């Protein structure tokens, strides 16, 4: 397939956000480099800069990792410090790639990258198969409810492009990830170095009949059936011009977090519970009678009721319950720990409230999905269950139902540090049936055990 730039400009339509996961040795940089390069997203001056920098380091071939390592310290140390975002396009689609580093700080970085991803690419070295790191990546993708997961079995050139090698790895991974509740898994045998099945179909693996990585990225559906979603609208800002031209305009501005809203629909405002009817939807200058996630719109209502930033508008027949007690899985992203009894701020959609950490019932080990009860605190990169009591009621959905209204941040009120990323409700899609491989340790109790 050849990609002409004119096609990119004219026909690229939808946007896919995806994340890559894999340690450096798995060939992630090479895969990212190849996707960028073969989609013409590496331009002459960037390549020249990489070649120049590679030469000055005494390297013979251009080091494509220099394309993605943007910071001085990263180049000096040859490591990737933080998530970076890359952009490329093909005739069919535009892509935002969250390039997440694979070194020790993996969890918070991958959680960050996966939080907005609709697809995650998990890389495996064909020679090593499914290893601890692979299971960790699958678990994070499952926790974050990334809708599509691609297993890229890399370095097929080093195992003689042997189908049985690929088939065994694909089966082991698919079984494991399915048990975690990953809804869709696509396994692709590739060689990022030689380009097999990355952009071009491989001549070395005629036994493989599936899509290349790029083809899959181009065709995977980006939005699901919104009619099945609970409609949610967090109010961001109240627009009241109070001008001669618009003396009575009162609109509630926000981005639809999930589902769709229609003119004429009866709605309930939370946490107050007041009801009204949608009389108008202004979609950035256009008056429409239906709007859906993730459109930024302004809703107008029939009644002048008290609504402000932080309130949630939902259809009256499908409003979430409110509660001051939040049970969730959190990934701890800060260097300072999170402890029982700690006073924090909880940011949920557009609402920030005071909260207190009542309990940390367990900490999860991603490697084997075992849980450690009552760890007392969570430190950087830990994932654990928490119970939080909030000062005001929140209209929180389960993260399983809505990534947008089921997620929250815990923030240190003293210095504003983002402490933890929270996902309300059950951790994984299936509450049991997860084989902990080595047998459950710590006497994990299956009753209500959802790690």
């Amino acid at each position: 397939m050849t990609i002409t730039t004119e096609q990119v400009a004219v026909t690229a339509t939808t946007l896919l956000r995806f994340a890559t996961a894999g340690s450096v040795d798995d060939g992630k940089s090479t895969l990212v480099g190849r996707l960028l390069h073969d989609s013409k997203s590496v331009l002459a001056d960037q390549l020249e800069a990489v070649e120049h920098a590679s030469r000055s380091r005494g390297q013979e071939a251009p080091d494509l990792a220099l394309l993605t390592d943007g910071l001085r310290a990263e180049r000096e140390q040859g490591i990737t410090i933080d998530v970076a975002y890359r952009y490329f396009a093909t005739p069919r689609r535009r892509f935002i790639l969250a390039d997440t580093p694979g070194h020790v700080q993996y969890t918070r970085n991958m959680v960050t990258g996966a939080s907005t991803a609709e697809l995650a690419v998990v890389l495996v070295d064909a020679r090593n198969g499914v290893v601890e790191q692979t299971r960790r990546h699958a678990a994070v993708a499952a926790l974050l409810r990334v809708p599509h997961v691609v297993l890229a079995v890399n370095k097929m050139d080093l195992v003689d492009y042997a189908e049985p090698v690929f088939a065994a790895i694909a089966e082991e991974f698919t079984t494991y990830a399915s048990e975690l509740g990953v809804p869709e898994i696509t396994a692709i045998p590739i060689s990022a170095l030689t380009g097999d099945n990355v952009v071009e179909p491989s001549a070395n693996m005629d036994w493989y009949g599936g899509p290349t990585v790029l083809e899959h990225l181009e065709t995977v559906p980006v939005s699901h059936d919104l009619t099945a979603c609970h409609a949610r609208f967090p109010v961001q800002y109240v627009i009241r011009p109070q001008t001669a031209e618009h003396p009575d305009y009162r609109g509630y501005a926000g981005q639809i977090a999930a589902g769709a809203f229609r003119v004429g629909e009866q709605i309930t405002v939370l946490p107050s519970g007041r009801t009204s009817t949608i009389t108008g939807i202004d979609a950035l200058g256009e008056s429409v009678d239906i709007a859906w996630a993730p459109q930024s719109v302004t809703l107008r209502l029939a009644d002048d009721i008290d609504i402000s930033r932080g309130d949630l508008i939902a259809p009256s027949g499908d409003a979430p319950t409110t509660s001051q007690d939040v049970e969730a899985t959190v990934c701890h992203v800060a260097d300072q720990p999170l402890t029982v009894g700690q006073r924090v701020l909880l940011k949920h959609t557009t609402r920030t409230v005071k909260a207190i950490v009542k309990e940390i019932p367990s900490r999860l080990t991603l490697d084997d999905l075992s849980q450690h009860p009552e760890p007392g605190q969570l430190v950087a990169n830990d994932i654990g269950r928490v119970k939080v009591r909030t000062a005001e009621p929140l209209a929180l959905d389960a993260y399983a139902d809505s990534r947008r209204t089921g997620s929250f941040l815990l923030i240190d009120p003293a210095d504003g540090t983002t402490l933890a990323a929270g996902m309300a409700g059950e951790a994984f899609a299936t509450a049991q049936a997860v084989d902990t491989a080595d047998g459950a340790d710590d006497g994990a109790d299956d009753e209500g055990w959802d790690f």
Partner: protein
Amino acid sequence: MTTVAHVHEETDSPFALSHLDSLESEAVHIFREVAGEFERPVILFSGGKDSIVMLHLALKAFAPAPVPFTLLHVDTGHNFPEVIEYRDRTVEQHGLRLHVASVQEYIDAGKLRERPDGTRNPLQTVPLTEAIQQHRFDAVFGGGRRDEEKARAKERVFSLRDEFSQWDPRRQRPELWQLYNGRHAPGEHVRVFPLSNWTELDVWQYIQREKIELPQIYFAHEREVFARGGMWLTAGQWGGPKDTETVEKRLIRYRTVGDMSCTGAVDSDATTLDAVIAEIAASRLTERGATRADDKLSEAAMEDRKREGYF
């Protein structure tokens, strides 16, 4: 009343948004978050295409109410007259308030010294950071895009700056979902980049879709230029050309707008938006690689300036 806005027919789902609609929706969300959470936000407005798109998005985000932000321009004193004219006309048209921080005034007052190479881009940092402190701005919108430069690829949408406006790339807050954390201590501020996820092509396609007016220097025109450092610089009172440099009239346009001393023009016959978009889509050079002298100073030039408080 239309039922459905900008649905693309090629996708399976009737609820899929086009990539421009997705980016627009995200940027509007960012503007409204800042309006809801900060006391004194300001938009950096240079009259360049990215800041023009930012202002357009802000106008849409709060319509039919006015934009609840003021504008700030860091004027290097070496700006293109067409751009200054555009800037002032736009401010007037929308009834906005513009603050100007002047590099020339800092030089005249002896607080900044002209650089030997004549470029004033790095000199913008001090007037910018002092203006932020003086006006106590707590959120500063910039038009920076992550596709521009590899240090910018690491930038957050909400980027905390300390009381010296410094960026510490190793101490950035992880940014998850669309939950932006704008908490800051007094004296600190947050730089906000609503166009983070846009590419140069997205910006141009959006300008075309929304029929946004731009300064004419973005389109091909004849201009007296001279070659320096592999780029066409415009001749003018700012200090070019030198004795050894010869001026010639060429058909050129600008891909970026900045200080005249370091913003290069590209040879182009693109006089329409369609032609500009075709030209960018076919270009083998990045926007900054083609037109910015100051980024070529070292491998980490942008990172170093950003650390000091540059936008």
